[in-house]
């Protein structure tokens, strides 16, 4: 997995920006709010709600616990954006970043018994693009919007 050193950017236009202190109990309410909006706007189907909640939960939890080391003084910023037929989220912490070599390669059979390190692999399962910027302090995830239901939204 490649981690870019350049600063994070997002394409398209900003829909919403939120900041939370690094407290893991604040992650689920934030994710519920954001995914609830995406479902209400028809960008995510009810069927895919759980998959998207999983990706956002993993990314924000990583930022809180690994990025900011659960330091309440440090903030995690979450920006929701739209870009053409896609929506995305840019999540930024105030930590030290991380080394891509620390992330286990779950394609290797011996790694199946690992008790941690599956978060990024889960995000890659259900998002169309997952890119790390700024040495790992920011992650940008993009997913195609759900097709409009017949008869229009």
């Amino acid at each position: 997995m490649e981690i870019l050193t350049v600063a994070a950017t997002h394409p398209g236009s900003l829909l919403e920006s939120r900041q939370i202190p690094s407290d893991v109990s604040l992650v689920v309410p934030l994710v519920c709010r954001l995914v609830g909006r995406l479902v209400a706007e028809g960008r995510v189907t009810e069927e895919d709600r759980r998959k998207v909640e999983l990706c956002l939960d993993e990314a924000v939890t990583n930022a809180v616990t690994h990025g900011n080391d659960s330091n309440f003084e440090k903030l995690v910023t979450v920006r929701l954006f739209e870009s053409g037929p896609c929506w995305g989220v840019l999540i930024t912490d105030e930590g030290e970043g991380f080394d891509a070599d620390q992330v286990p390669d779950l394609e290797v059979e011996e790694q199946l018994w690992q008790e941690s390190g599956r978060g990024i692999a889960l995000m890659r399962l259900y998002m169309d693009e997952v890119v790390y910027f700024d040495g790992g302090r920011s992650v940008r995830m993009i997913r195609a919007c759900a097709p409009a239901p017949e008869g229009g939204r």
Partner: protein
Amino acid sequence: MASDDIIRLTQTDGIIIAQLLRGAFRDENGVLLALEKLGQVMKGRTEIRMVLDLGVVEYVSSAGLGRLVACLKRARESGGDLFLASVRSEILELLDLMKLTEIFTVHETVDAAKDALLDRA
């Protein structure tokens, strides 16, 4: 055996049936705590034969998957085994995509998992 509002533990024919009682996204912490507690219950036991009933679990994060793997490891290291039962389709899909069905044995019902463990005895 011990029970509370996040996990119910019963024992029958030498097989421990562990039923998770919470499993929604908003209860993710309940799932993690239940699996943590299960790991503690397994500590120090030998030849653990266990069925883990995930019937109510509709959300598992990477942390939850890690704790499931930890429980499976503990059961195998004790000389026994742990089978999963009543796994919802979305969780089964996740286990499959993460290749964890290569190490977990999954049964449709608790009774089927229990019978399979008894057959091994």
